[in-house]
């Protein structure tokens, strides 16, 4: 890796770097702040005036050393309580890649925050204290990563300096975590032994762990592939807005603007518009001012069709060969993110891609306890931070994919029509990727339908 101070020499390269979104998860004392601090600090993202402000406030409070938590805890309430209460987004860069870090609080009651951070993440870093090993909170974080289908998970076994940098300690934690997360269907797990405090294997390779031959945390972040999950899927194009200039220069232009949710669109391709089922052919693709033959997720483009058919915001354009089925009965897992409960019979709004429809919660078959993945049948309602299965009936048909196939077209929000509150984050289809997860949990007496 090259530090950002050398960026001046590589300006042309810099604009061509890729973007990785990742989230961190860890319990309160696992050293998450230290890890985040070291990543930011060593990539030059903590600047002199920010450090000076932290030193000044720390000194005013009579503290001996600068309190680096002040760098990340931005709200008055957070500083007063000394805890992080909300997701914060942080930005840093190397010459190889730019990073958006969703810094999510580790408290149990803020599961919704980890869900928020993980929803857009390509990768999640789960932090474990080497002295404690895999604990309930670790399993909870692995389960949320699996539920949200974060493509890559890094297990950072921290505080290796406090266990004598012992390979056997790391190996047994890595083995236990990998077995657990693989059972949940996490597709890729990379375990890295680190000391965030001493700097081992965060940015620089450790001099204390010759037995470890893998990448440092930053090397892994710089090289892990991104976006493959979007372009490998069938194309989905939710129409956001119809562009009709009606000007002298463009009297007949009619384009469908949107962001390609998954897959690849090509000029000449036969497409179906849902939910109407009308068909046409892609006549042209305008990629923000440039006419192109091919475009892919997550590009924002404008699509023109060969036929003048009735299409508006909320419709979905998909290749006729792989168009999704439409449904009015949504079976999904939801994470409840609001303070007001969600009960059976509730009338809600469901926002799926660019389409918002009325809906009724028909059933809540079960509620999941993340600690041990046990499930409680028919809880009647879900409250803040609960994760549960729901059956929702919508007033109009939706072109909904399984979340397993597309995080973009398989996800939805439930919204309170009275005050607009976002009630729940929904993921259509099966909860976890692996059937083994279901078997593992079913081992006990109660049934398991997640």
């Amino acid at each position, binding site marked *: 890796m090259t530090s950002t101070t050398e960026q001046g020499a590589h300006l042309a390269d810099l604009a061509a770097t890729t973007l990785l979104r990742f989230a961190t998860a860890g319990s309160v004392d696992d050293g998450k702040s230290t890890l985040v601090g070291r990543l930011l600090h060593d990539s030059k993202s903590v600047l002199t005036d920010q450090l000076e402000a932290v030193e000044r406030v720390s000194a005013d409070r009579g503290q001996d050393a600068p309190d680096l938590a002040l760098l990340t805890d931005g709200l008055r309430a957070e500083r007063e309580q000394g805890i992080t209460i909300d997701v914060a987004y942080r*930005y840093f860069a190397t010459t190889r890649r730019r990073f958006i870090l969703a810094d999510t609080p580790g408290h149990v009651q803020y599961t919704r925050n980890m869900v928020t951070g993980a929803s857009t993440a390509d990768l999640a870093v789960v932090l474990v204290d080497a002295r404690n090993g895999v604990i309930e909170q670790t399993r909870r974080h692995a389960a949320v990563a699996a539920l949200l289908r974060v493509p890559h998970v890094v297990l950072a076994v921290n505080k290796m300096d406090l266990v004598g940098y012992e390979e056997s300690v790391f190996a047994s934690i890595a083995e236990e975590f990998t077995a657990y997360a693989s059972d949940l269907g996490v597709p890729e797990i990379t375990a890295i032994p680190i000391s965030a405090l001493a700097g081992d294997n965060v940015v620089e390779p450790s001099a204390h762990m010759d037995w470890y031959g893998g990448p440092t945390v930053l090397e892994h972040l710089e090289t892990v592939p991104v976006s493959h999950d979007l372009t490998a899927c069938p194309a989905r194009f939710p129409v956001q807005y119809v562009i009709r200039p009606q000007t002298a220069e463009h009297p007949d232009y009619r384009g469908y603007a949107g962001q390609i949710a998954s897959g690849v669109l090509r000029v000449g391709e036969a497409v179906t518009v849902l939910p109407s089922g009308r068909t046409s052919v892609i006549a042209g693709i305008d990629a923000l001012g440039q006419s192109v033959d091919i475009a892919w997720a*997550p590009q924002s483009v404008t699509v023109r069709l060969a036929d003048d058919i009735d299409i508006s915001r909320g419709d979905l354009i998909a290749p006729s060969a792989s168009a999704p089925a439409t449904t009015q009965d949504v079976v999904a897992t939801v994470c409840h993110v609001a303070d007001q409960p969600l009960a059976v019979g509730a009338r809600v709004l469901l926002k799926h891609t660019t389409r918002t429809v009325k809906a009724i919660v028909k059933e809540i078959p079960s509620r999941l306890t993340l600690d041990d993945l046990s499930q409680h049948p028919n809880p009647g309602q879900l409250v803040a931070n609960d994760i549960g299965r729901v059956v929702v009936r919508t007033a109009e048909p939706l072109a909904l994919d399984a979340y397993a196939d597309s995080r973009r077209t398989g996800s939805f929000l439930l919204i309170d029509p009275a005050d607009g509150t976002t009630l729940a984050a929904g993921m259509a289809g099966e909860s976890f990727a692996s059937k083994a997860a279901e078997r593992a949990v079913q081992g006990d007496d109660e049934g398991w339908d997640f």
Partner: protein
Amino acid sequence: MTATVAHLHEETDAPYALSHLDALESEAVHIFREVAGEFEKPVVLFSGGKDSIVMLHLALKAFAPAPVPFTLLHVDTGHNFPEVLDYRDRAVAKHNLRLHVASVQEYIDAGKLRERPDGVRNPLQTVPLTEAIQSLKFDAVFGGGRRDEEKARAKERVFSLRDEFSQWDPRRQRPELWQLYNGRHAPGEHVRVFPLSNWTELDVWQYIAREGIELPEIYFAHEREVFQRNGMWLTAGEWGGPKEGETTETRLIRYRTVGDMSCTGAVDSDATTLDAVITEIAASRLTERGATRADDKMSEAAMEDRKREGYF
């Protein structure tokens, strides 16, 4: 980890990767179009500064070849740089847009706002801004705020609901999941929208360079009469500086941010081109706001407190 996943990487990662600027551009355009699709009367805050200039550029691309379906709003502190006002008016004319101006000076002249003893007008913008939003009935207000600017802004949502008093309550924000933005609001409430949330200062400059976007000249190194106050180089002018004991000198400087002249500091610089500016920022050890904004230094939570009251 299975062989299938590795195979997918080989096949698709290289041909279908997006550069980070393309990814940020695509996301911002998506946000503009969401607002156009869901709101009745959106407006773009436009100051003639680099962030709002990039927002306008993105909006033009998002709806091309149709015109931008939004009007613009500028909160004029009365102490703006003339070059920037000139740029603002030229941009409005060039793209055939409609501009609303909310004037701090008019509020002071009418006795509805009082000049602060230090002459700093940035905090005075909140009242004209929020009253303009209410009286013109805007329901979505685009701002150029970025989360990398300041630690309170790092907590800001892309869609940020404001109550009928335009207040921001950081503890009652809606979780923002995937790219599913929730713009529901009651009459009288509005939503602040930040399409550049995930951009950094360097991203903005790289994008300006890539797209060949014209900027006001004060962003590039030039000689100017300045004087020092609270460790910052301020432009001498009728707004109230220099005071007795403050002496002006001619220095080679440029501005990293554009705002009210009373609290926007210049930095020593010989960067006269976009490439030179980008090189300078990549090597800088100071944040944009730390280097140039007096109002953020007023207290540890200055930005949070102003945002709570309705500042952008």
